């Protein structure tokens, strides 16, 4: 169990990151709010509590690495990186503006702190596997973390990466599935049924856990368990709510990428600050 103080501090960070993410997207007027908001707890846990990183030296040798394979969650990653000090916070208002360093999907050539370029779904996990393999070849004790989407898991490449990672016994690879049960066109249950993800990953030879993706204690315990498994890569399936914390988007079908009006921006932030829904 995490200390109460740590949980409170992480929860405060999560609120800040959610507010920044809403502001980023609202400033432009629309964007990938749903899948950004659903991963905020795991992002904040990794960046504020878990990973061995140095924002003043983004390319530090031997660091832990993070690949956001669902590259469209860039806005939440950028809000986190800015808060960590990888780049000035005012960059966040340039999201997707021509010439920006913060493009819609994560780009390692543009954004300090991004460890790999993603955006074409299914590709980030293979890169993460390569990175984990590279860490092992170099004799590092570091870890590679990646987040994939449940919709993204419809890509065949995910499963190519899965079978390779388990065959190579990559115990230093910890992947999360953001299991928010929604994809661009609607609910996964209406498009491709993803209900049996746990058994799929087990069948591919991974160590599998399933937890509440918005609960820091469960995230902490799952990562600890994953690290104790030395010869298998780990899948941690996060039950999450798409658009979590952006109230106007929660529970609706079309929340993958949506317009955010100034009124909804202020309303959602007031809810995050304790106002009534």
């Amino acid at each position, binding site marked *: 169990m995490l200390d109460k103080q740590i949980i409170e501090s992480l929860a405060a960070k999560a609120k800040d990151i959610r507010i920044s993410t809403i502001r980023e997207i609202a400033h432009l007027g629309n964007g990938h709010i749903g899948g950004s908001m659903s991963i905020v707890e795991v992002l904040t846990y990794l960046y504020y509590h878990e990973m061995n990183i140095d924002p003043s030296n983004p390319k530090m040798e031997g660091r832990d690495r993070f690949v956001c394979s669902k590259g469209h969650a860039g806005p939440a990653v950028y809000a986190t990186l800015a808060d960590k000090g990888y780049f000035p916070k005012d960059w966040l208002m340039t999201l997707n503006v021509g010439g920006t360093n913060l493009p819609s999907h994560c780009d390692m050539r543009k954004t300090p702190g991004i460890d790999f370029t993603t955006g074409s779904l299914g590709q980030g996990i293979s890169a*993460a596997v390569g990175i984990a393999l590279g860490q092992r070849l170099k004799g590092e004790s570091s870890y590679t973390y990646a987040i994939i989407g449940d919709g993204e898991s419809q890509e065949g490449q995910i499963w190519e990466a899965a079978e390779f990672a388990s065959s190579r016994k990559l115990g230093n690879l910890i992947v999360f599935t953001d299991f928010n049960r929604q994809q661009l066109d609607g609910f996964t249950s209406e498009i491709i049924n993803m209900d049996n993800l746990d058994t799929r990953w087990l069948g591919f030879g991974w160590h599998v856990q399933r937890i509440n993706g918005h609960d820091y204690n469960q995230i902490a315990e799952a990562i600890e368990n994953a690290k104790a498994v030395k010869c298998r890569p780990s899948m941690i399936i996060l039950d999450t709510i798409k658009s979590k914390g952006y109230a106007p988007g929660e529970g609706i079908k079309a929340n993958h990428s949506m317009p955010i009006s100034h009124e909804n921006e202020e309303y959602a932030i007031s809810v995050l600050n304790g106002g009534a829904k």
Partner: protein
Amino acid sequence: MRDTSDIKDMRDALMAAIIDLAKVHPEVVLLDSDLASCLNAPVFAKEFPTRFFNCGIAEANMVGVAAGLSSMGFVPYAHSFGCFSSRRAYDQFFLSANYAGQHVHLIGTDPGVTAQINGGTHMPFEDVGMMRLIPDLIIIDPSDTQSLYDLTMQAYETGRCTYTRTRRKGGTHRYAPGQVKLGKGNILADGKDIAIVATDEVIVNEAVKAVEMLAQKGIKATLVDITTIKPLDTDLLEKVSGETGHVLVCENARYAGGLGEAVAAHLAKTCPAKMDFICVDERFGEVGKLDYLMKVFHLTAEDIAAKAEALARR
């Protein structure tokens, strides 16, 4: 620098280069997709067991893993047959390797008709066009064991992504070490009536014969061997176009996206010539031995000589 005149097969010249690089550069690694024995990659695996990865029959993941390894400072060479290296792993090579600024050397073996008895499913005529669409990618199509060896060594130094297409079995000895430079064509014959611009080992071999056949008819042909399809040796192309006014481009690939289209587009802007093309038009591949395929796809020395003669007389 190694002399490859004792190496019989193209694949062994390639493996020799990768092994020589790996001896000097500990970051060199080799990935394959269940075609390792076809490339004689076990020779590499034996010498560097921790630096060889058989990724199984999963080309997309192989290229993605290679890109991830590159981001860790490794320099991966990744192999499959040309049809799969291009068509099955294209988005991964495009984005995770090239767009992401990584340093991945992709190898596609048995290009075009050299796929022979693997047949139409395995016969990439389109890989050149697909790869030419990737910004700043280096494309190598060697014409002998030495050019393959030397260009592999030189391409390593660029720090850029490359695509190399070469047949595996069989080989030609044409050059001495150091004669071929990345991005530069080589003049194999000098004549004022027509310039034959050829790429790919089996095609250049035919073009050499065609030059002799043309000479017997009193037609003097220049022959340019293009071993680097991209970046193109535009200075040399402009020179031979200007000197002869007739350019015949010959390749083991589709016209669409191929070397012929690249040369035509460049000369149209700079130094137009009367042109024709030896290449594969709107056709898929088919099964057969090399001599059969060279005939049905009209890639033989006789085809080249006939088109060159007609073009020279235009």
